[in-house]
């Protein structure tokens, strides 16, 4: 137990990095996912194809491969960036594919009449998307998005494998010094479980607040 308490500052630093990774890549993924979803439901075939290619590519590549490629490969073609920023961008790009797929199923779950009504009162495509379809679609995807958020939080730990000292890496380092794996890894696991529990709590509240019974 003392191993955990003695190294609290390092572990706390790791937790802060993990929280940064989660918050920043979630924000990035959310924005990207809305764009990709817009592409995937657009009436233009080329744009739909681009959106589909994006989702298929990033859903079928391991995140670790993307991280390795970005962290070690990009400097080779003259793109230098901060390690943490690179990881955030890569995780955001990767998770956006999953968020986009969830959003698309949400858009598809909106009743046909809603879109027809929006057009009948003269809204343009983007207006009907913004004011009619998306608000409803977002409500039905609260639960899937919550699960994806937890998956994103778990995936940020992969940043440890390319040299970012997040919670996982911090726990590992402290263990290498102290050689007391049980308290240290259980502590780190509890921190992740706590993050996931918070996400579950928030989505539960959101869902009760937003959900429309049909």
């Amino acid at each position, binding site marked *: 137990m003392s191993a955990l308490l003695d190294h609290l500052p390092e572990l706390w630093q790791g937790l802060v990095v993990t929280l940064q990774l989660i918050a920043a890549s979630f924000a990035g993924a959310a924005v990207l996912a809305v764009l990709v979803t817009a592409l995937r439901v657009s009436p233009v075939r080329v744009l739909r194809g681009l959106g589909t290619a994006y989702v298929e590519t990033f859903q079928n590549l391991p995140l670790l*491969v993307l991280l390795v490629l970005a962290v070690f490969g990009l400097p080779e073609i003259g793109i230098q960036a901060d390690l943490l920023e690179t990881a955030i961008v890569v995780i955001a790009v990767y998770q956006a594919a999953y968020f986009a797929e969830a959003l698309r199923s949400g*858009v598809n779950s909106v009743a046909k009449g809603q879109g027809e009504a929006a057009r009948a009162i003269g809204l343009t*495509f983007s207006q009907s998307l913004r004011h009619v379809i998306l608000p409803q679609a977002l409500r039905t995807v609260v639960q899937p998005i919550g699960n994806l958020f937890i998956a994103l939080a778990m995936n940020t730990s992969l940043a440890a494998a390319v040299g970012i000292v997040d919670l996982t890496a911090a726990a590992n380092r402290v263990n290498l010094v102290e*050689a007391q*794996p049980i308290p240290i890894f259980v502590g780190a696991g509890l921190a992740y479980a706590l993050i*996931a*529990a918070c996400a579950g709590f928030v989505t539960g509240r959101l869902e009760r607040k937003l959900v429309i019974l049909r």
Partner: protein
Amino acid sequence: MSSTALFDEPGPRARRRIRVATVLGTLAAVALAALAVRQFAAGGQLGYERWQPYATWPMWRYLLGGLWSTALAAVVSAALAMAFGLVLALGRLSERRWVRLPAAGYVEVVRTIPALLLVYVVLFALPRYGLDLPLFWKLVVPLAVSNAAAFAEIFRAGILSIERGQGEAGLAVGLTRGQTMRLIVAPQAARRVLPSIVSQSVGLLKDTSLGFVVSYAELLYSGKVLASFNGLLIQTYLIVALIYLVVNLSLSKLARTLEARQRLAVPKRRLARA
């Protein structure tokens, strides 16, 4: 066309707009590709001698050897995770509280622990307690442990999706609970969860890239070894990514085919409820 809720049949003006957007979209895609190529050329990564090695068999033989190890790790951990997941799912559906609670606890806890943390536990924590697994199992055990929870939820959802009447009918004709599950509910549930199982297996196959961390020579780690040997870093990792992409896309396609076939087999009545 999936989202007919969004637009009607296009009229002349909409068709014109679609044509403009098509042209703009194509231009944007081409511009992006050109930018990437220019960046590669500027970094001197497009030279013939930097790609030529990947036209030779030894390089591919090495990477395909890595792919074989990836497949082996994926298959073994999938088999273990499915077996354990099935036990957990049945446990979670058990009538007995002392079976149900631990199973539910396992699933809920493991679902929220990163696979990499489990890998570190097996890699650095267990040896201290005298349990130093061979390299292969250092990758397979954490993957099986974490994916068992995911498979358990898939199986449980499948079992719960079978109409209650099926199980009740089994009990009514005098089968025991075990027999009802084995003879009536499980065979129907198995068909229904097949697509989810395949797509979860894609996730598992992606997770085997954690072999990079335990230095088990699967595809990604093989790529690392190869890149440090021939110095063609970006080319090697791109080829590795391409192999992953091809394999996983085929598996995902299989999942979709299975799903489509199943949709044909399921009567309309059930679809309406789902």
